[in-house]
């Protein structure tokens, strides 16, 4: 049975709530403390992006399974301005140089799978999975 937690992001409180929910599920699935912190940081970054660029959006956190593997899936979705040049925001050094934090390349590095979908003026959906080793 799949459990899905859903957190509305429209303030910094939402970011903390999403972190909390993510850490809790990661612990339940059986992630160690380092991976728990990684998953939480990834959620943080995704939630912050929503808050900073789209003002509001949703974070969904759920257990992921695939051919015997278990893991945690994070989906971040917003109806914000969208990303004009995805290749550029996925480039190392693009967002971090401005002091904006780990950015999307950081999230990709923290997680095992990463998918991004964005339409200008329609919004952005990012889905990322961390597998249990």
């Amino acid at each position: 049975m799949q459990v899905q937690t859903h957190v509305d992001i429209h303030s910094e409180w939402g970011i903390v709530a999403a972190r909390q929910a993510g850490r809790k599920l990661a612990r339940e699935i059986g992630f160690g403390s380092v991976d728990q912190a990684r998953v939480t940081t990834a959620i943080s970054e995704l939630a912050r992006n929503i808050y900073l660029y789209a003002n509001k959006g949703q974070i969904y956190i759920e257990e992921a399974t695939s051919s015997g593997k278990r893991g945690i899936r994070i989906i971040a979705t917003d109806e914000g301005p969208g990303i004009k040049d995805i290749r550029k925001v996925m480039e190392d050094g693009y967002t971090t140089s401005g002091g904006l934090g780990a950015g999307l390349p950081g999230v990709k590095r923290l997680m095992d799978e990463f998918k991004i979908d964005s339409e200008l003026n329609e919004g952005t959906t990012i889905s990322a999975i961390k597998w249990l080793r």
Partner: protein
Amino acid sequence: MEKTKLSMYQLYKDMLNTYLDSKSEHALYAAQQFSKEMMEKDMSPEEMVSLHMSVFQEMVPELPEEVVDSFDLLLEVMIGYGLAYREHQSLRDRQRQLESELNVAARMQQALLPEDEIHAPDVDLGVLSVPAGKMSGDYYHYIQDDHGCIGLAVADVIGKGVPAAMCMSMIKYAMDSIPEQRLQPAALLESLNRVVERNIDSNMFITMVYGSYDPRSHRFYYAGAGHEPGFYYSKKTDSFEELTTKGLVLGLSQKVSYKEYVKNVEPGDFFVLLSDGVTECRTEDGFIEREQITDMIRKHIDLPAQEIVNRVYRELEKMQDFELKDDFTLLILRRKV
């Protein structure tokens, strides 16, 4: 991976034990070596913190709760450092890739310069061009026709590095497309200007000096497009004269005409063409004076032309503490007999 983690665990545990026992510098040195190994194995800072904590907890099972909990905070902070470290690694890889691409481009650029030597019993040619970075915005050219007439040029694209280098290749191809004007400096510059004007960005321009030497009449014709003046050395009077030319830089407006100058060349006389990387050379005491360049040339005046340019370069390189600020090109053509 799991196996390395296990052996790392054991290694770290032994190290920590030794240190807590002896507090020796030796153990600390071992830790320093260990950190290198960690980095080679791609262990992140957060994994290191977690390793420390689990080893420590095993050694001292009754740790106060505050100590254990405080590591949560450290771990969280280290994630950020770990990301920065990974990003640094990936940027370093990308830099290596860019650098190797640049190396290829630089070799291609080198191939645009003339290769064959001038074979003429009565003239001596020396030229040296050194880019400040990997690629050059300077260009030089020389060519000899069937009558032994020699055409030569030094061009300088504004700026330096890759953009300047791309522009430089345009000059080369443009020159190749107008071979019939090789011995008419002013006409050649006029044609080149039209090509450059059509193909260049509005903030860019190119300066160029073009000269041609006719060994039958011993005359040197030259024209310049906004280029740093070179020198003419007269052996008879043992003096240098500025090779001043009037003419607008290439690429600014469609219709420009250039004035052609001519000099009678006596045995031992020579011409110096250069880019502003030679004269705009900046040392600790400010810019060097143009006389300093002629003094350097004079010092080696009895050497072959190629030796003179090499030595002037070496001296200027030293004066700038081996850090070239701009592309450097120096060319000397001398009438021997």
